């Protein structure tokens, strides 16, 4: 089998394992979709003045896309890799001839596939149940932003798993590293009236860059293909930093040498 074939097979089995683990699937899927339903229902009919009078749900769907992407690529991948390391799965894999890149590609690919399914469900639910306006004109920008976001958060997820000492600590560390920033990144509610220092700090982090890039593609005032250049460059910078960190921090084995 080719190395690419090995990666594809790894992805297939990661998916099997993912869907059989109720806790993982629920956390990754139910949360974003539940948030979408609850917040959109609570705010049905609401419009956001600061965003050109768009409906709340048109503002909210890209935020949920960002949240879902971060759950699948960052939270899920970081915890999964820490568990795999702590349980000795990585050590076992290391003893086989599987190339490191093919194994990791299977892991990352599984997270990207989950992101894609979440994307389809979120946008589908938004359009069908809440009348979100999905704009094909800005779809290229939306798509590229999602791909870059997935790359960025997978790299950061791998890096953070290198920092987690063990499987028990992983969920706490990973969630703590993400939730405060999610709230100040304008994902769940617009921050147009928030203190400017807070939004300036948030803009330094990839959560805000991703959310803003996705919201830009959904914004009815956006013209062109929906690329928000500034956000994408900053995401790229985080991707590079995350990848370098991931390479530096990656460990096959939890035990101290």
């Amino acid at each position: 089998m080719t190395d690419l074939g090995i990666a594809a097979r790894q992805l297939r089995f990661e998916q099997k394992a993912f869907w059989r683990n109720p806790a993982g699937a629920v956390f990754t899927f139910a949360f974003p979709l539940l948030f979408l339903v609850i917040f959109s229902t609570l705010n049905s009919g609401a419009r956001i003045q600061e965003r050109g009078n768009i409906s709340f749900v048109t503002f909210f769907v890209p935020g949920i896309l960002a949240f879902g992407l971060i759950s699948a690529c960052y939270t899920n991948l970081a915890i999964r890799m820490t568990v795999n390391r702590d349980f000795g799965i990585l050590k076992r894999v290391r003893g086989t001839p599987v190339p490191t890149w093919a194994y990791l590609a299977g892991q990352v690919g599984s997270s990207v596939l989950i992101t894609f399914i979440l994307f389809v469900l979120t946008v589908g639910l938004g359009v069908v149940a809440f009348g979100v306006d999905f704009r094909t004109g800005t779809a290229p920008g939306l798509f590229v932003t999602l791909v870059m976001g997935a790359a960025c958060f997978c790299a950061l997820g791998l890096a953070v798993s290198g920092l987690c000492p063990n499987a028990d600590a992983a969920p706490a560390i990973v969630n703590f590293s993400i939730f405060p920033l999610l709230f100040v990144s304008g994902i769940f509610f617009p921050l147009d009236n928030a203190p400017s220092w807070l939004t300036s700090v948030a803009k330094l982090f990839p959560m805000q860059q991703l959310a803003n890039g996705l919201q830009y593609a959904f914004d009815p005032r956006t013209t062109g293909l929906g690329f928000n250049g500034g956000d994408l460059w900053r995401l790229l910078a985080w991707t590079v930093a995350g990848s370098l960190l991931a390479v530096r921090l990656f460990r096959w084995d939890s035990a101290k040498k």
Partner: protein
Amino acid sequence: MPAIRVRGLRKSYGTIEAVRGVDFDVAEGEIFGFLGPNGAGKTTIVEILEGYRQRSAGDVEVLGHDPARGERRLRKRIGIVLQETGVERFLRVAEVLELYCGYYPEPRPVDELLALVGLEDKRNEVVKRLSGGQRRRLDLALGLAGDPELIFLDEPTTGFDPTARREAWEIVRNLRELGKTVFLTTHYMDEAQHLADRVAVIAAGRIVADGPPDRLSGRDDATEIRFSLSPPAELPDLGPVTVTANGRGVVVRTADATATLHILTGWALDRGITLDGLTVVRPTLEDVYLELTAQAARD
């Protein structure tokens, strides 16, 4: 060419020298038992051979390769069964095997692996629902997935009940029939005795004895013949033996039990003397092992 060749192996952690100059060979097709107390440097050496750790000094060759270089072409040819290594808990037994077989260029068929370790009935069971012994058998099957020439087995039967242990031994013996080389680490002396063609004992970072389990550390030279004389009498010349008398009880340590017994029983019959409670015992592998490791701890 030996399957494993180790010369002058050393490994230090900071200022602590865990492995202090170790030499040994493992021949192709041999079951090699590697014995030693915890903290003796056993795991360090095994993990150096498996490519998990880097040595500080010395030469190591595994199937002609330096394991420190982590080459795929070496990992294709070895199988590693570690202690306490997890496996994807939400996959079924056959799925895990299929996944791992996919890592190797010429894997063994999944059905064959299941049969080899006796898990045919469990092929559709989710891994997390397996018992400890079944998990260990799955570990073994995963180590054999690539049809390796050389297999590292680290404490393969820890936690097994006696029946499961016998079954596992049968699997290991089958590997020898297939011409595989087995590097077996174990704490169970009966396991080493039953399986190993040759054992090495490591203590305090050095190999203190090396040889077939039956002859380790002059074990075959140390048969003890015990009896008491009735009526008391002067023993004949028994040749080069050590005689310890304790009242009427006598212990004769001999290198050649057959000859010594021949003289002794012949003499007793001629004289009409009874050798009460005559027993012939050999120190067990465990006796020898405990003596060797205790001695190393004293040095």
